[in-house]
C-alpha cells in the first residue's frame, strides 16, 4: 500500500513543480497526437461525408474496409509502419523511423478509420429526403454538406473523441516506430511503461494522472462544443 501512497505523493509534487522532464513528455504527446488527429479530421470528415452520401459500385467493400480499420490491432499497424519506414523499406529514404513523424503516421492510420467510419454512419443516418429538401431550398452541394455535418454533429464529435482517445492512450505502435527515445520520441504512454519497469512509480503515476486528465479535458471540451452548437 505504501508504494502506492508514496508514489501518488511524489507524483503530486512533480505536478505542482511542473517538472521539466514531465512537461517535455506531455508537450510531445499533445503535439504528436494533436497532429495525427488533425490530419485524420481533415481527411476523415470529408471522406466520411462523401461515403455517407454516395451510393456507388464497390461501396460495400470500402465500408467493410473502413470498419475493419476501426479495429486494427495497433501492434500490427506499428509493424507495418516500421517495415515501410525501415532503411530497406519502401519509405526508408524519408528517414522517419524513430522520429515523431513516424508516430504521427502510425497514429493517423489508427485514428483515420475511426473518424471516417463514425462520421459516415452519422451522415448516412440522415434521411435522404432532407438532402432533397436542402437542395430544393437552394443550397449548393457544399452548403448541403455543411448543413448535414451540423445535423450529424453529435456523431461527428463522437468520431473525433474516439479518434483522440484511441491514439493518446496507444502504446504498442508508438513504442515500435518511435522507439521511446528520451527528449525525442518519448510520449506519455511509453514513458509510463518505462518508468514502471524502472520502478520509478512516482513519475509513472504522475504521467498516468496527466493522461487521464488530458482525455477528460478533451471530452469535456467536445461536450461543451456540442452544447454550444445545440443551443443555436
Amino acid at each position, binding site marked *: 500500500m505504501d508504494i502506492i501512497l508514496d508514489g501518488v505523493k511524489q507524483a503530486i509534487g512533480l505536478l505542482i513543480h511542473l517538472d521539466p522532464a514531465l512537461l517535455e513528455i506531455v508537450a510531445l504527446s499533445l503535439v504528436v497526437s494533436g497532429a495525427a488527429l488533425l490530419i485524420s479530421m481533415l481527411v476523415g470528415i470529408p471522406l466520411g461525408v462523401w461515403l455517407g452520401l454516395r451510393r456507388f459500385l464497390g461501396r460495400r467493400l470500402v465500408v467493410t474496409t473502413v470498419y475493419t480499420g476501426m479495429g486494427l490491432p495497433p501492434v500490427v499497424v506499428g509493424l507495418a509502419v516500421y517495415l515501410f519506414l525501415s532503411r530497406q523499406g519502401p519509405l526508408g529514404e524519408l528517414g522517419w523511423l524513430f522520429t515523431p513523424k513516424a508516430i504521427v503516421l502510425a497514429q493517423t492510420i489508427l485514428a483515420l478509420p475511426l473518424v471516417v467510419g463514425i462520421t459516415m454512419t452519422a451522415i448516412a443516418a440522415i*434521411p435522404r*429526403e*432532407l438532402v*432533397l*429538401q*436542402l*437542395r*430544393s*431550398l*437552394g*443550397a*449548393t452541394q457544399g*452548403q448541403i454538406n455543411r*448543413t448535414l455535418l*451540423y*445535423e450529424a454533429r453529435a456523431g461527428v464529435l463522437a468520431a473525433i473523441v474516439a479518434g483522440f482517445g484511441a491514439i493518446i492512450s496507444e502504446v504498442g505502435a508508438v513504442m515500435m516506430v518511435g522507439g521511446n527515445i528520451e527528449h525525442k520520441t518519448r510520449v506519455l504512454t511509453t514513458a509510463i511503461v518505462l518508468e514502471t519497469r524502472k520502478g520509478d512509480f512516482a513519475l509513472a503515476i504522475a504521467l498516468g494522472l496527466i493522461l487521464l486528465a488530458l482525455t477528460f479535458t478533451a471530452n469535456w471540451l467536445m461536450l461543451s462544443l456540442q452544447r454550444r452548437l445545440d443551443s*443555436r
Partner: protein
Amino acid sequence: MTHEIILSVRNVRHQYGERVVLDVPRLDVRKGELLALVGPSGAGKSTLLRLLNFLEKPTQGDILFHQTPYTPENLPLHLRRRITTVFQKPMLLDMSVRRNVAYGLRVRGERDGRAREDAALRSVGLQDLANAPARTLSGGEAQRVALARALIIEPEVLLLDEPTANLDPANVRIIEAIIARANRERAMTVVLVTHNVWQARRLAQRVAFLYEGQLLEIADTRTFFEHPSHPKTAAFLHGDLVY
C-alpha cells in the same frame, strides 16, 4: 386565350426498378396559376413534384423550365433557386425555428434577413416560437415553419405537398389564405398536391387528377368538379376510390 408556360412535362416515364410509377406524356404548368394535383395515395404525386423541382431525373422524357429542358445536373443554380418544394414531411433542421426559416436566405448569402424572417414567422402565426428548437414543435407547427421557410425565398414556382395535412380546421384556413395570397398578389405559380378535393376546389384555378402514375384529367376547377370527363375522376370525387 394563350398562357405562358413555366414548367412542362414531356413524355415522362419514371421508374423505380422495374416499376413504372409515373407515365405522363404531357403536362403544362401555366405561369401564375394555382394548379391542384389530386389523386389517391401512391398515385405518384410526390414523385411528380420531385421531378418538377429537378430533384430527380426522369427515367425517360424531359422536364422543361421556361421552355428549356434541364436535368438536375445541368440546371443552373440561379434557375434552381427559383423553384422550391414544401415536402409532405416538414424536414426541419435541428436548430431554432428562426434559423430554419432563414435557411434559404442564408444559402443565398442574404444577410439582414431579420425583418423578412419576422414577417414570414408572423404570417404563419409562429412569431412567439421564433427561438424555440424546431425539434420541439408539434406536427402542425412544424408544417407551418416549413411553409414559412419556402415563402421567405419568394420563389417563382412553389410546389406544395399536402401543406395542410396535419393542421386543425382553423389553421387550414390560415394556411390556405397565405397560399392564395402568395398566388394572387405575388403572382407565384403554385402546384398544390392535396388529398382534400374541397381544398383544391377552394384554391385552384385548374385541377389535375393523377391515378396510378397517369394523368387522367386536367381541367378548369369548375369543369373538373362539375363535368369530369373521366369515369375514374368522378369516382374519386365521390370518394369511391379507396386510397
